[in-house]
């Protein structure tokens, strides 16, 4: 029994390693495109400029250094939580590439997770360069997080990625019924943008809106990990518990839709 389990784990490790390395090689072929994607994620810096001007004129009660660190942290967190599984799945479905993947004895989601993690690894040096450039231009904002807050921030970012992936992958199941399911993701981008903390730290929102936001999964996708990384005080346990609760809610829905979707699958383009 234990030997069987060990064999299965070794098999899973080998698949994961090979998928990650081949996807990383694939992503490196598209490194120029990935740099452009990384550059296109500078919304937090634009918002930093905007809110700094507001802060200078009226006083937001956050302080310019705190704002700068928050938005830089938000940029970093955003870079490692970008999820595009719906678009790839939709294309794979329409072009018929999904069918050979479905015929292999490995859960399909592994491929997409490996592709995302590999893309993040490809982004890493460019993100580091942009962070370095930021500190060069704004040396006063430099900070070095403590080991514990760095570790927590990494965990929170990973959890944020997992939650965002699970949420989008659950919506992706609609692709089994609709050829343009990605419109749903575009619709969802709006509340994500405003409630995740990408356009402003949630601390600046009116209390009612902020309270409402924390009943949604969005603040845990940017605001919470960014504040941990920026060294702010965050209710860590409560935040991780909320992420776990959202995952526990989404996972069964995802599995149910996956099973039903497979029954409905028509293997288009094949």
């Amino acid at each position: 029994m234990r030997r069987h389990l060990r064999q299965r784990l070794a098999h899973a490790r080998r698949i994961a390693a090979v998928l990650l390395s081949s996807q990383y090689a694939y992503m490196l072929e598209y490194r120029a495109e990935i740099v452009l994607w990384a550059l296109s994620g500078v919304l937090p810096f634009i918002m930093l400029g905007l809110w700094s001007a507001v802060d200078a004129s009226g006083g937001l009660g956050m302080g310019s250094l705190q704002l700068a660190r928050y938005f830089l942290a938000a940029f970093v967190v955003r870079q490692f939580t970008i999820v595009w599984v719906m678009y790839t799945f939709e294309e794979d479905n329409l072009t018929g590439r999904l069918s050979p993947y479905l015929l292999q004895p490995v859960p399909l989601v592994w491929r997409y997770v490996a592709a995302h993690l590999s893309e993040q690894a490809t982004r890493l040096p460019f993100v580091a360069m942009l962070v370095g450039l930021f500190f060069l231009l704004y040396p006063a904002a430099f900070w070095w997080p403590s080991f514990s807050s760095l570790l927590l921030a990494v965990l929170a970012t990973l959890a944020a990625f997992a939650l965002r992936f699970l949420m989008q992958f659950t919506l992706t199941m609609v692709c089994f019924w609709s050829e343009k399911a990605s419109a749903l993701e575009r619709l969802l981008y709006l509340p994500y943008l405003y409630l995740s903390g990408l356009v402003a730290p949630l601390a600046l929102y009116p209390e009612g809106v902020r309270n409402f936001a924390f009943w949604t999964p969005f603040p845990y996708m940017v605001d919470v990990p960014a504040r941990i990384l920026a060294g702010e005080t965050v209710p860590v346990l409560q935040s991780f518990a909320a992420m776990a609760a959202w995952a526990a809610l989404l996972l069964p829905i995802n599995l149910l839709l996956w099973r039903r979707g497979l029954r409905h699958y028509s293997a288009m383009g094949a």
Partner: protein
Amino acid sequence: MQGPHRVGFAFKPVRMAIVRAQGLGKTYRVADKRPGLAGTLRHFVNRRERLIAAVQDVSFSIEPGEFVGFLGANGAGKTTTLKMLTGLIHPTSGTVEVAGCQPQRREADFLGQITLVMGQKQQLIWDLPPLDSLRVNAAVYGIPPEESRRRIAELAEMLELGDELRRPVRKLSLGQRMKAELLAALLHRPAVLFLDEPTLGLDVNAQARVRSFLADYNRRFGATVLLTSHYMADITALCPRVLLIHEGRLFYDGSLETLTQRLAPCREVRLELHAPLGAEAFASYGEVEAIEGREVRLLIPRERLTEQVGRLLADLAVVDLSVSDPPIEDIIGRLFHQGAVA
């Protein structure tokens, strides 16, 4: 509607069948929209759908090691049947069993025993050399690295692939890509191969190489193969037995030889003449299929072929002449049009 004709004695039922379909059916729901703006608006307000029976009451079984051709015109239901046999889509009615498993359950044990090759639908990673995709497949199917290297070398030799495996897939020719696809699809040494148009779009030489590889693979590993192809040459070279499907129903299950005699009593003779002639000039040689300027296509009964070709060469100013079987789609189309099979 009657069941398929079963001809010949070689294909006995079925106790050892590795593929078994019983009363298999698949119905799709499709949108029913009229053309034009009015049709579009009506469809938007009141969306109508209708049911299309892509496959109806199809039953057959295949024994281990058999090489079976699956024939039918476009839209006849071949690919839908293959998709049900592989578990990609769920049947609306009937039962399927492949290698002792129910395909639609997609159990790892089942997936490890089958493969589906769809012409030009690639599982290879486009921007990387095939070897990278092969590494992934080896890991997925749990083939130890040493064994996978041995198998890759063996299959590459059979497919006449060498350096191509180290070149990005996008840089390979269609033929090389198809061969690499086959290698990827067969690395786990499946017991049952479902091949959907594996030679589609390949030039004649590449078709011949893929064909000889498939025959070799079938012989060497005792694999069971169900092959669809629009190229009659694939079927004649590889498949002693064929299934013929038309409008979703199985019409024939038996030997190719008998089918050919029944479906294609004529061969197609293509002529290029010195100068154009009217259709009446060919009436005594065979049935005129088409005349385009100096090029003429005739259908001549097989038993009179030699005699009539001799006469054509003697009587007319012929620049070029070739003889072939009419495309299988033409033959089947003509036959169903005439109601000869039904």
